[in-house]
């Protein structure tokens, strides 16, 4: 094949020896710097597990209790470390159990490489035992996928997989390897992939567009920045902070952008979106220039698009060209990596303060504080609130913990009220909204950042979706803090039923088991709090514990999360009660 038609660009070759496909896989993983992977064994992946046994001193395999848990653990590992999370599973049900985690990673741009075993190639398409078309099934939720039927293809496909997963807008990749390819021997050599002809992961920043954006920003009277996870993925936190401080522009965040700028920063004006802060939501419809950075105008952020920031000129910084004009039309689109783009933009920006404009955010915050925040974090009425639990955790951790939240009311409360001093500290399922995410994701996060306090905040519903991963916590001795905010309801659905379905609480009330006994059954220290007077000491004990710890807090049954933009309403129709 002529050089011009080589599909992948490669880095220099390492090693050359005759080994099996499954051993080659180990060497590929090691060449990519993989030290930890999450998975679950089974028939069609057994040759790979046999090699994992051989290489266990170099690759730490964490056996989850369900393949979905393995994917979420790999996501948590990736989100806090910025590395590629690696998952391994067998064919059939093992592979299909990965799909929820893969879909979650796809929509939240988390780099994963998932490796599944497959029946031998002569059985493909025969409905053999534990055969399923995982390539077909995973196509719509992966950035790329590929089936390997020959051992010799393993190095080049794995190299490509890692390159695709982590480059540009990151995402999940699935590689399916037939059992015969795992056994087959071949002359192994490995070259890292450094480019693919048909794939341009990072657009080159257009200088003229940067100049145009700077001119528009400098001329603005009431500009607003809304930043997303793109800042974190491109590791642009420092330049972003410098840009915010130089320009003096108030900056609000999407749920996945949280923690890129410290919560306490004077120019951080809070969260946008359905349960975001009053000020940035209301003032989205008053700003004259909206500067969106590394965010995709998700419907939970914009509410009704017909009335979203119609008065504003929109500047959109984005790495993925398909996101430009997808939901909100940009007046100026700047394609490229956020770090590159912001570095180029910074010198052009004028130093400003916008004190009157900032005052509007402060005035609206005062209203929100009076009507919502005060009652959430300093309640006087009976019944513990989720907000005061988060507030107590803030006090104990001083804002330095990584918070891994599940999905539901507690997630919104955790994101609204957690203090984040350190980037990559808010790990949650933003796009897919996957209940069951937090416990396994926190396992991965704690393993990737053992020096940090990692606290999983989970509702009683989501907890029971992946509660089996307590077994992984116990077996791996992961000193994770698990807080279940128990309101004996699927709280967010109940809130919607209350507000929009005449309080017809269909199948949302939960009769829960003894969570403390279950934790103790896994040899995890645990306690339950039912009174406000017990909360502070319980959180203190949890934070002081050396090993894993489970804390159940029984909160008010029918507490609601406000502010709230009703589904399909404008951001300026945000309700405080």
């Amino acid at each position: 094949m002529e050089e011009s038609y080589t599909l992948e660009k490669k880095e220099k070759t390492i090693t050359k020896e005759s080994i099996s496909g499954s051993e080659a896989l180990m060497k590929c993983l090691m060449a990519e710097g993989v030290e930890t992977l999450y998975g679950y064994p089974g028939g069609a992946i057994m040759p790979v597990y046999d090699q994992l046994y051989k290489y266990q001193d170099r690759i730490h395999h964490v056996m989850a209790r369900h393949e979905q848990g393995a994917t979420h653990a790999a996501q948590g590992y990736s989100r806090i470390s910025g590395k590629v999370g690696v998952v391994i599973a067998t064919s059939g049900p093992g592979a299909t159990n990965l799909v929820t985690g893969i879909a979650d990673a796809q929509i939240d741009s988390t780099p994963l490489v998932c490796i599944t075993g497959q029946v031998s190639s002569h059985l493909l398409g025969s409905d053999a035992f534990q055969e399923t078309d995982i390539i077909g099934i995973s196509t719509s939720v992966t950035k790329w996928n590929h089936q390997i039927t020959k051992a010799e293809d393993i190095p080049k496909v794995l190299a490509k997989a890692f390159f695709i997963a982590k480059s540009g807008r990151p995402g999940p990749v699935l590689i399916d390897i037939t059992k015969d390819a795992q056994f087959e021997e071949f002359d192994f050599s490995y070259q890292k992939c450094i480019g693919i002809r048909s794939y341009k992961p990072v657009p080159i920043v257009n200088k003229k567009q940067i100049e145009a954006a700077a001119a528009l920003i400098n001329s603005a009277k009431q500009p607003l920045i809304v930043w997303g996870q793109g800042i974190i993925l491109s590791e642009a936190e420092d330049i972003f902070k410098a840009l915010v401080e130089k320009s003096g522009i108030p900056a609000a965040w999407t749920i996945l952008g949280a923690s890129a700028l410290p919560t306490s920063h004077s120019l951080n004006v809070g969260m946008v979106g359905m349960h975001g802060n009053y000020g940035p939501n209301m003032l989205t419809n008053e700003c004259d220039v909206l500067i969106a950075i590394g965010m995709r105008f998700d419907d939970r952020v914009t509410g009704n698009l017909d009335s979203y920031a119609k008065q504003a000129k929109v500047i959109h910084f984005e790495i993925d060209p398909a996101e430009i004009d997808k939901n909100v039309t940009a007046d100026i689109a700047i394609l490229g990596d956020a770090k590159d783009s912001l570095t180029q933009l910074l010198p052009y920006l004028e130093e400003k303060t916008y004190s009157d404009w900032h005052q509007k955010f402060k005035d609206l915050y005062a209203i929100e504080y009076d009507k919502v925040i005060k009652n959430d974090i300093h309640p006087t009425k009976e019944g513990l609130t989720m907000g005061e639990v988060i507030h107590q955790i803030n006090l104990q951790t001083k804002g330095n913990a990584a918070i891994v939240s599940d999905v539901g009311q507690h997630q919104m409360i955790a994101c609204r009220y957690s203090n984040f001093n350190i980037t990559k500290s808010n790990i949650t399922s933003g796009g897919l909204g996957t209940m069951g995410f937090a416990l396994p994701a926190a396992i991965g996060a704690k393993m990737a950042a053992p020096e940090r306090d990692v606290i999983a905040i989970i509702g009683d519903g989501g907890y029971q979706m992946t509660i089996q991963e307590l077994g992984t916590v116990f077996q791996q001795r992961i000193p994770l803090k698990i807080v279940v905010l128990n309101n004996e309801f699927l709280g967010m659905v109940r809130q919607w039923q209350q507000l929009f379905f005449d309080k017809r609480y269909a199948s949302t009330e939960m009769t829960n088991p003894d969570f403390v006994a279950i934790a103790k059954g896994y040899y995890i220290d645990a306690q339950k709090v039912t009174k406000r007077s017990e909360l502070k000491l319980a959180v203190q004990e949890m934070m002081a514990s050396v090993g894993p710890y489970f804390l159940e807090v029984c909160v008010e049954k029918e507490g609601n999360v406000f502010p709230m933009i009703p589904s399909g309403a404008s951001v300026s129709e945000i309700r405080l009660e």
Partner: protein
Amino acid sequence: MCENKVYTVSIYTENNIGLLNRISAIFQRRHINIESINTSSSEIDHISKWTIVVELSEDRMKKIIGQIEKQVEVIKAYYHKEDEIIYQESCLFKIKSEFLFEERQIQNIIKDSNAKIVHVNREFFVLEKSGRTEDIELFHRELKAFGIMQFTRSGRIAVTKDEMKISEMLKVF
């Protein structure tokens, strides 16, 4: 809301298994019906060219091109309006041989339409016709009166009137 129009999509891709699934899924999840689809080798060695015909608004068309180009193995995707391309479709008709010899009108239709007889035997004959969509539809209507034993039609194939600088793009890699 933009008006729906017929667009022809040209996609240049690597020739990889599974890409059909990815590209068709982009249309499927947005409830857009693919009117016709054709893939073949292109003017560039080892590069496949896809020609897809869809009917939708230009606004949606642009967004879909973005989603197509986002696929790792897609090199470039374009969309064209009807007046920007030269296209052909091809079809085959199987008709009883007795009509060919007994119905003078059929002979005239074949002659006037520039269709070709590609096979004849005692039982049936096969006509091939290439042309624009409306030419084939007219031909189909004319023959239908005599009874069509089998009919099949290809996807659209198209070239643009303007140059597409795909070869230059590939050299940059």
